[in-house]
């Protein structure tokens, strides 16, 4: 079977862009990816696209060109972008196609998401009494983790501090000013122990990747990181997910643990082989828990690792080198593709100002509602 390579990558800066629709930003990213590799839209044999709140992804077609290719809209919660990538990976791996594009974009209203119980199969009383908030889930999950594994609130502050430091160095980041640890710790409490600056915000942005088979890549004289492993997994009994009026007494693995294991198995590598990682950081606590769920440390070791700066640029395992969701915001359709875009820059030695020297294996993990996780492992 052929290998799958990412031969081109483009991005529209994340953040707030009042003069542009989500679609505008997706098309911008798609054209940037084509320009990155010197190809035309007519060279693409397929497309997979995702957008959660900014309309149909296939609305890019009239702008990029009505070439008649297969284009499939992907909608898979917070892993929409990651799932579009996985679909493109399968399309080439199966031998059906040689080259195509995955694109994701979004534009969310300001402020926290505003979900309705009925959309989640929940009774209305659950929302009436004030339990229908994603922020509560994050507070509950990390509070228990802190209690079980001895993590302090300062560690969550360090995660956000690092994110904003890295954002300063990243052209596609939204938050590009450093924020000190004290300011983060003393910002408004949202859901204990998490403060305002420890949460990412819904945002806007677009990202696109061009995938190619070994043969096509050689034929065109291109290069690009190889996809060593890619997997999406969903929740099982005993997983703790958002908007759960009840949980199983018998606890089980998270979808991230399942997707991580599947991707490592495919790649034939382990956590200690990874040089740079992009981990879902919807809030600071998520990055801490995901370090362990993806195998990079044991539960509880994060406290010392963060204090020692292990996940900062120049540390043992730099995490979220572009500032992650905390500094970039979270446009759902584009977020997982942003992570992969950043790893492509790192593995190609193009991450100017934030380059992890000699990075060979890049790991990315996107996670979210309603309880799914997608992992991609790239090799330069």
């Amino acid at each position, binding site marked *: 079977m052929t290998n799958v390579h990412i031969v081109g990558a483009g991005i529209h800066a994340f953040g707030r862009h009042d003069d542009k629709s989500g679609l505008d930003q997706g098309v911008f990213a798609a054209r940037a990816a084509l320009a990155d590799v010197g190809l035309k839209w007519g060279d693409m044999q397929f497309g997979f696209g995702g957008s959660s709140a900014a309309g149909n992804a296939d609305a890019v077609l009239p702008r990029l060109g009505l070439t008649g290719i297969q284009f499939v809209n992907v909608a898979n919660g917070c892993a929409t972008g990651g799932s579009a990538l996985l679909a493109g990976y399968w399309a080439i791996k199966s031998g059906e196609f040689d080259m195509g594009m995955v694109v994701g974009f979004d534009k969310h209203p300001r*402020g*926290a998401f*505003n*979900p*309705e*119980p009925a959309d989640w199969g929940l*009774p*209305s*009383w*659950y*929302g*009436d*009494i*004030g*339990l*229908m*908030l994603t922020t*509560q889930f994050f*507070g*509950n*999950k990390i*509070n*228990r983790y802190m*209690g*079980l594994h001895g993590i302090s609130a300062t560690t969550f502050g360090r995660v956000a501090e690092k994110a904003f430091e890295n954002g300063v160095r990243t052209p596609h980041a939204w938050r590009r000013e450093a924020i000190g640890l004290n300011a983060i710790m003393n910002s*408004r*409490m*949202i*859901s*204990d*122990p998490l403060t305002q600056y420890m949460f990412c915000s819904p945002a806007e942005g677009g990202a696109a990747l061009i995938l190619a088979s070994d043969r096509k890549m050689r034929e065109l004289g291109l290069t690009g990181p190889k996809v060593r492993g890619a997997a999406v997994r969903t929740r099982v*009994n005993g997983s703790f997910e958002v908007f*759960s*009026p*009840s*949980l*199983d*007494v018998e606890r089980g693995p998270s979808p991230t643990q399942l997707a991580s294991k599947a991707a490592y198995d495919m790649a034939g590598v382990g956590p200690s082989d990874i040089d740079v990682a992009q981990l879902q950081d919807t809030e600071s606590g998520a990055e801490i828990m995901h370090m362990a769920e993806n195998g990079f440390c044991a539960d509880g070791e994060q406290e010392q690792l963060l204090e020692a700066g292990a996940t900062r640029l120049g540390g043992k395992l730099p995490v979220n080198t572009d500032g992650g969701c905390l500094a970039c915001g979270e446009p759902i359709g584009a977020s997982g593709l942003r992570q992969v875009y950043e790893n492509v820059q790192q593995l190609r030695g193009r991450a100017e100002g934030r380059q992890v020297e000699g990075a060979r294996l890049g790991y990315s993990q996107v996670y979210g509602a309603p309880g799914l996780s997608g992992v991609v492992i790239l090799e330069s």
Partner: protein
Amino acid sequence: MALMPIADGLFEVADGVAHLIGGRRKSDGRMVFPLPTGSEGGHYEAVRLSSEGRLWSFTIQRFRPKSPPYAGADDDSSFRPYALGYVELPGEVIVESRIETDDFAALKIGAPMRLKLLPFRKAEGDVLAYAFEPVK
């Protein structure tokens, strides 16, 4: 006059003690709360859950949630932060609940909790809701 419950089939009082009503899935015994209703309800049998358990995790809601879906009669100026979390009912299920306390700093994972029924003030009037409170 007795308050109307916020939803039918959510809780009941037996011998003066309040209980939540959960569901046991007939196919595999998995316990859930609340008891599913409608077309899904036939796959579950009702279970009167323990009225006492231990705090599994918690957090504090520091700002007034958006309406909808939040239906509290308060507004941004009269809103008071509230605790909520999960209570493990031994051998049954872990249920999500508001936690009735003003002493947030005293909340500890593993602390004993007891169910109570209490009024919840909606804009259109009070209804009867449930919460767990620390056992003193």
